[in-house]
């Protein structure tokens, strides 16, 4: 009996020690500014359990644990994208006038990157980073999934035991007031009050296919999003509230705000700039989706590369929000998120998300970047969601696509194009 109690005590001590160790690791992850000179990685290197220390601050804690447990991969040369010239020109033309309001809102913004220069000592650097992320270049419109082999987003929900379920969907996004290449420019008349609108359609499996959401994000920071839902089982449109942004979009591990890593209203949060660092990511995903073992969420033959990122800590103004802390690693050139880490209300590590990128072409042949495969892993329940969602940009969709009439002509398995 004593031995059992002793064992329990040791287990309890071991659990506490592991939690303390994890806490320390996460503290390091969320705040350390790793100098570039300390990175000792070159193309062709293989990372695995034998040399995990080389990347211990460059990937999430969960992936690091997987590396320690045997996962290995190669390092490749870093890919460097350049922003489209129209976006750069808009930044040069308009960024000087952009200011932050008293509530963190964006004032005088027209187009381009709001704050091209981030000063580390600027107390508003975090807020500015968040707005830069929000207004990163994403084309004038795009179809998520439009550049995958199937022409749609492929989503897999993977259970702890490796069981998998697949779902397909497509998503169309319009940026009606920041148009760089498509006419009318710079805004579609009548749409100046809308930051973006998105229509998202489930296409597989059959019973959910046709389920469609239409969402509007308004420029007015005080105005909540509008969300309409078309439900094929009743063939009707239903209104939905958008304020419960924490709810899990089961069977995925994403919440409403996890879409595109951080889909919340910028003014609902506080931001802290934690520094710059080099991290591992993949800007040229080879397989779309990447090759992997069934039941696992890590790529088997993708190579990783070193990129420079900003580290941004996000804390909610609403104390009841699901993530009391979220940390994002934002790429310095594309302003896309490469990694995100979320903690729960007890302060325990909860979710880890990484996103690969893939090159895609515009209609004129110019190369730009797109999201490739995104992986979000819930370290507490062991479930993972993989989304392969390569975008095709500037398709020239009419604005009327993002209207309620579109929802009324959806058929199961059909498309709206």
């Amino acid at each position, binding site marked *: 009996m004593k031995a059992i109690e002793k064992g329990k005590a040791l287990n309890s001590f071991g659990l506490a020690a592991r939690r303390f160790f994890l806490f320390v690791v996460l503290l390091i992850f969320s705040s350390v500014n790793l100098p570039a000179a300390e990175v000792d990685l070159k193309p062709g290197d293989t990372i695995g359990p034998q040399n995990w220390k080389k990347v211990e601050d460059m990937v999430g804690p969960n992936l690091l644990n997987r590396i320690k447990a045997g996962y290995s991969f190669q390092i490749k040369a870093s890919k460097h994208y350049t922003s489209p010239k129209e976006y750069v020109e808009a930044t040069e033309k308009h960024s000087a006038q952009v200011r932050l309001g008293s509530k963190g809102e964006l004032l005088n913004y027209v187009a381009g990157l709001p704050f091209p220069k981030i000063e580390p000592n600027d107390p508003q650097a975090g807020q500015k980073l968040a707005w830069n992320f929000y207004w990163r270049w994403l084309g004038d419109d795009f179809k998520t999934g439009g550049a995958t082999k199937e022409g749609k987003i492929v989503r897999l*929900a993977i*259970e702890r035991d490796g*069981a*998998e*379920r*697949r*779902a397909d969907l497509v998503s169309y996004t319009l940026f009606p007031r920041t148009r760089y290449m498509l006419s009318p420019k710079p805004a579609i008349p*009548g*749409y100046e009050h*809308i930051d973006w609108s998105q229509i998202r359609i489930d296409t*597989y*499996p*059959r*019973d959910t*296919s046709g389920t469609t959401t239409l969402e509007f994000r308004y420029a007015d920071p005080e105005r*909540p999003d*509008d*969300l*309409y839902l078309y439900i*094929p*089982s*009743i*063939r*009707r449109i*239903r*209104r*939905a*509230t*958008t*304020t*419960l942004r*924490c*709810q*899990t979009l*089961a*069977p995925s591990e994403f*919440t409403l705000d996890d879409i595109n890593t951080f889909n919340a209203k910028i003014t609902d949060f506080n931001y802290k700039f934690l520094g710059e660092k080099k991290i591992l990511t993949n800007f040229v995903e080879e397989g779309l989706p990447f090759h992997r073992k069934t039941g696992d969420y890590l790529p088997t033959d993708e190579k990783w590369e070193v990129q420079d990122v900003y580290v941004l800590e996000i804390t909610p103004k609403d104390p009841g929000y*699901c993530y009391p802390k979220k940390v994002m690693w934002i790429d310095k050139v594309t302003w896309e998120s490469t990694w995100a880490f979320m903690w729960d209300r007890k302060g325990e590590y909860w979710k880890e998300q990484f996103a690969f990128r893939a090159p895609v072409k515009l209609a004129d042949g110019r190369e730009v970047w797109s999201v490739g495969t995104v992986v979000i892993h819930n370290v507490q*329940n062991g*479930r993972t969601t993989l989304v392969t969602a390569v975008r095709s940009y500037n398709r020239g969709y*009419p*604005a*009327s*696509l*993002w*209207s*309620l*009439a579109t929802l*009324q*002509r959806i*058929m*199961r*398995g*059909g*498309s709206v*194009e």
Partner: protein
Amino acid sequence: MVERKNLSSRWQMEKTKNHTGLVISCLLVALALTTGSAQAASILGEEWEKFLTERVKFGGFVDNTTGLAIGPDGDRRHFKTSNRFIMERFTIQPEFNAQMTDWAKFFISWRFVKEPRYNAEARSRRKSVSYFPTAPVQPLPNTFYDEDSPKPWEAVLDILPTDRLAIRLGRQFISWGETDGLRLLDVINPQDSTFAPPVAPNLFDLDETRIPTWGIRMLYTAIPASSTTLELVALPGFEEAKQRVDEVVGSNDTRDGIVRYGRWSAHPETRLIIAGRNAFGNLYANSLSPASCAAPTIGCLVIPSTTRQLPDAGDNWKIGARITHNIGKLNFGLGYIWGYNPQGADMVFKRKGAVTCSAPVAGPCLAGLAPSVVNLRLVNDRTHIFAGHFNYAVDEILSIPLNTAIRGEIAIYPQEPYNISEFPGRNCATGVLTGFRVGPRCKRGVEDSDSILEKNTLRYALGFDRSILIPFLQDDPWRAFRMSFQIFQRIILDHEHGIHLFSTAEKIKKVSNFLTFRVSTGYRGDTILPDLFVGYDPAGYWSFNPAVSYAPPWNEKIKLTLTAALYGGHNKFAFPGFFSEKDSVFLKMRYQF
């Protein structure tokens, strides 16, 4: 009689055989199109290969639903429905999508259903509803629920002449309104209630129970930014003679004199029981032998000879127009529907002709030895409806977070027809009470030969939708519970005493209410999906429709649902209490492809 039965069953067999062949042929074609595209390409050429592989998509489902009656032993209410299967419904529905051009798409689906019925049910009904030994009432034929027509279930051609104009032609669904589980403005397509119980949306979706209708629908988006849309629908209504409308009462519309009851028809009995038999016909007519009603005998009984009366082709049109618009957070629409109203709940009985005798000659009836017969036609009159709907998202009021979507719809029916009778029954000429709870309506001292009057009716519904988090009930504390609460009200503006449900002797009050509540969520990564729907009439009736589905984590194509449809109330003659002895549980298994 025997000969007729044999002929009938032979015809049914042949019909089944022919249709089975057709079904198999269709399935083979579907299979060839989908699985054999490469072979098809070699026959049809590269262009076709490209079209079939890139622009044609195939989907659908196979579904089996098994139902078990769990109600109390039916002797008390004539139906023996306990502990026996009431449903074994197998459905296969192939669906094709073809992206023909950038501006034209085509969707087509077929629905094939095989649903054998059981002798126990047939015996039960035969015993329970036999009025008269010489004209035994029969249950529905065993193939009544089968669907094996080659006619497409849905077949629509979507055309986009411009970015803002969408035209849909073909056999289609058109659904207006905002409600869930019950229909108010969703009256454009009829609903097939022969297999779906009422107020039980967890068993069959509305999508599965509506009957598609041929027609055209046009949507013109006038102002995209505010979703200002003009909508026009026109449905000529050229449907087949066997229009599967709500079989809520018995009817003998097949000219063989056999009264038939659907699975979800209400109990055929009313509160009128004469000589131990259901005296439903006495709602509409007095017998040929009033003397036999003094101490009620079989001669007082009036048998209803009911016939479903479908509108002529020219009277079957339905036209609707609607405009929807957004003002800020408010989305609303105003519309108008004119034409034939196919909804089961809006049917009325029209009395036709004089009361006759059930015997070949009138003598036995006049002597009080045989029941009388009244001919009734079950009809849906032409109607016109002024319609409106709105929805609005309330985030907070006075800084109190509400996070609620409010939705509502209103339908104004000018001159909606209702059946009317005398409560209590009386002799129209003398005014003396007959002693029956109800009798035919008297009009200027004589029995009313019509039994219908028209009243202005207002119906509306308000719904409140909210998602909440109840962390301690979930394995994922951020998995929301979706809750929905709805209030339905009907007000007969120029109400009159004696208006009653067409199928029973239950009076309709000036104001009637119905409340619904629904809550659903998901457990274990949405592999276990509970959903509860409750309906309640403050007059004392309720329905309870719990369901739990299992979506296995290893295959997204499979779904199993266990659900129940339970009804109750202080009497069994008002909606939905008249289903109280049809409590049932169902297991639904679906494979999607």
